[in-house]
């Protein structure tokens, strides 16, 4: 807002009817005078940089993760923390008074930071420095100076003593700087900026300008991880779980609002049903696909309630989100006839099945290119990865639709085979010899056989010493 000082220009109404109206010319106020008039000392923000050279050993992703974890510690002293390569920079001017100076603030941080570094199995040391610009503090910390620069005017001289390595340029640029006789930043200050820009590109110049506070410094800031917790005290103990549903509905409504505002979804929820004098009942809702649909979550909860028995009346209800996930929306076709048969129905159904029966009950089957009949069919949990499930060629010999989990020994009476009734061979043999490499030597002759009752069976005879007969499948 513009100050209404003595130099402000007032708009004068034009008065045509009165003659000799004087127009007052006001001198435009000089900039210096305005600053003098509103003289308030400008407080620069103070940036506190933490440099972790030991992160060099990790790869890019691990570095990111480590910095995220370290930022969780630093957030205790500052609300704005930005990520930089192997470094965090926090704004501390606003909290300097509260902690009582930079030294106290550093003491506050040192212990927890060393602990988190040890948790990450990294060496528990770090460089730190404070300066009035983000990049200035960063360069100081990289230089390992542990210095504090409170005044913008001192930046130039403070940074000047740093060796050129703190700029972390590439090898070619370093070589060129060295050849030019530039050893310290001091030598760079003496060079003309446009020449530097031509030789080293604008990045270096921008970095130097940022460090000296001559260029704006946009940063990528740390955002604390979302957390959601809510609870509801019931006025009296509730024994019937269905009575909890309206309460749960409201809590899930809050949750879904929370998720929608942050464009998130969740795939793991925890309901705690608290009882008096008893341990709380844990009810974990796992979703196959992250969701923020109130009705869907409630329906799942209802399914879970359906098979839950509680040891005592429920006195209060707590809801926590264990896992957040990015929300992925689906865009639908505008024309109804283009819409494929919706799979959301199926997903909902699968969720419900999983909630009620447990994850292991749902199986998909697929055939595997294997000679040994037991290994040619594989069951895997629904929703598990579909790797290696390309269409496999199967044998052209007859295979039964039912396979016995274990081959069943058949009895041989006289010259006739018996299962429940007498068995006669229909066709065969198909010889299968395999898996000698794995120790279980499979050498069998498979036959299609027919029971007196009409059932068609798949039987085999061992080709090993005992030559026993086994029932292995049923052609249903």
């Amino acid at each position, binding site marked *: 807002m513009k100050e209404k000082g003595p130099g402000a220009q007032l708009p004068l109404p034009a008065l045509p009817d009165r003659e000799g109206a004087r127009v007052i010319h006001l001198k435009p106020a000089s900039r210096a005078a305005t600053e003098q008039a509103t003289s308030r000392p400008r407080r620069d923000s103070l940036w506190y940089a933490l440099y972790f050279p030991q992160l060099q050993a990790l790869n890019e992703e691990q570095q990111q993760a480590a910095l995220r974890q370290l930022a969780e510690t630093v957030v205790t002293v500052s609300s704005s923390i930005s990520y930089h390569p192997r470094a965090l920079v926090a704004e501390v001017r606003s909290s300097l008074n509260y902690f009582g100076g930079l030294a106290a603030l550093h003491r506050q941080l040192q212990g927890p930071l060393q602990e988190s570094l040890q948790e990450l199995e990294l060496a528990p040391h770090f460089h730190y420095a404070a300066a009035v610009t983000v990049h200035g503090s960063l360069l100081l910390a990289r230089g390992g100076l542990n210095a504090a620069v409170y005044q913008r005017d001192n930046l130039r001289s403070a940074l000047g003593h740093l060796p050129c390595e703190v700029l972390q340029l590439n090898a070619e640029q370093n070589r060129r700087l060295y050849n030019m006789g530039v050893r310290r930043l001091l030598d760079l200050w003496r060079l003309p900026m446009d020449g530097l820009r031509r030789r080293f590109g604008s990045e270096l110049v921008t970095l130097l300008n940022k460090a000296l506070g001559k260029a704006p410094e946009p940063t990528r800031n740390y955002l604390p991880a979302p957390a959601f917790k809510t609870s509801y005290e019931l006025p009296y103990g509730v024994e019937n779980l269905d009575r909890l549903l309206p309460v749960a509905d409201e809590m899930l409504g809050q949750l879904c609002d929370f998720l929608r505002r942050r464009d998130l979804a969740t795939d793991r929820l925890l309901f705690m049903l608290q009882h008096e004098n008893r341990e709380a009942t844990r009810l974990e809702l796992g979703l196959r696909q992250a969701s923020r649909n109130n009705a869907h979550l409630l329906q799942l909860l209802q399914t879970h309630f359906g098979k839950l028995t509680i040891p005592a009346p429920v006195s209060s209800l707590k809801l926590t989100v264990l896992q957040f996930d990015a929300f992925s929306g689906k865009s639908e076709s505008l024309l109804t006839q283009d819409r494929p*048969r919706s*799979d959301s*129905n*199926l997903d*909902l*159904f699968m969720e*419900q*099945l999983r909630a*009620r*029966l447990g994850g*292991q*009950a*749902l*199986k*998909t*089957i*697929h*055939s595997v290119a294997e*000679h040994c*009949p037991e290994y*040619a*069919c*594989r*069951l895997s949990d*629904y929703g598990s990865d579909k790797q290696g*499930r390309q*269409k*496999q060629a*199967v044998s*052209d*010999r*007859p*295979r*039964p*639709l*039912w*396979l*016995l*989990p274990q081959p069943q020994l058949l009895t041989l009476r006289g010259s006739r085979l018996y299962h*429940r009734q007498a068995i*006669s061979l229909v*066709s065969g043999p*198909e*010889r*299968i*010899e*395999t898996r000698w490499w794995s120790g279980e030597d499979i050498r069998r*002759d498979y036959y*299609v056989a*027919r*029971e007196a*009752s*009409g*059932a*068609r*069976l798949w039987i085999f005879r061992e080709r090993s010493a005992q030559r026993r007969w086994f029932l292995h*499948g*049923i*052609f*249903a």
Partner: protein
Amino acid sequence: MATARQRHFSPHSQAAATGAVQHIEQLLQGNTALWRGCDLAGQGNSGQATGFSELDAILPGRGWPRNGLMEIVAPHWGSGELQLLLPLMRSVIARGQWILWISPPYLLYAPALVQAGVDTEQVLVVDLETSCRDALWTMEKALQTGNCGLVLAWQDWLPGKVLRRLQLAASAGDTLGVLFKHKDSKHSPSPIRLQIKDCSPESRPCSEAEVTLIKARGNFRPLSTRLPLPLSSPVKRSGAARA
């Protein structure tokens, strides 16, 4: 009701109302929502082809029903009860729907399904150890969602109330549910009950099954037919095949 009355009236008022009766007849035949006790053919071709022309001929609607509950009675597993359904499974898969197998008695063997042309990508097995309640719950839910084209379950004895509930779920979700049983229960409310028995002669390798329609909405007396149910590929190869 209407059909019975029409039968009574038609001999008496022949001369005057022949044209009108024919007209009514046409109207009735055109209406697929109506089933007529006296006339099997009158149901039109509302069913889905079974893949066996002999079976199509005796089933009302010339094929398996589009939705509802069906019971298949086999004295023991292995009488060809699944082979009867293989063409249906193929068409369900082709429609992009799922086939759900609820607690089958043995391991479902994927290579055999592949041999029969049933894509295993759309086959889901619900593997339950004991709980009959969970199996029925699953079946009801599966019948209600429209994504499953065929739901197969093996349950020997179920009370009429449960069957009626499943029937309602099946018609709500427009899904066909099949219950496999060992024994027939006389008063089951399922609209179709079949019995399958193997009747192939001892000597012949090609097997034949006798399918008896114990009950079907739309016909009065049990009908039966014989179907050839060959194995997917007849095996006659001399000598040992090295694996």
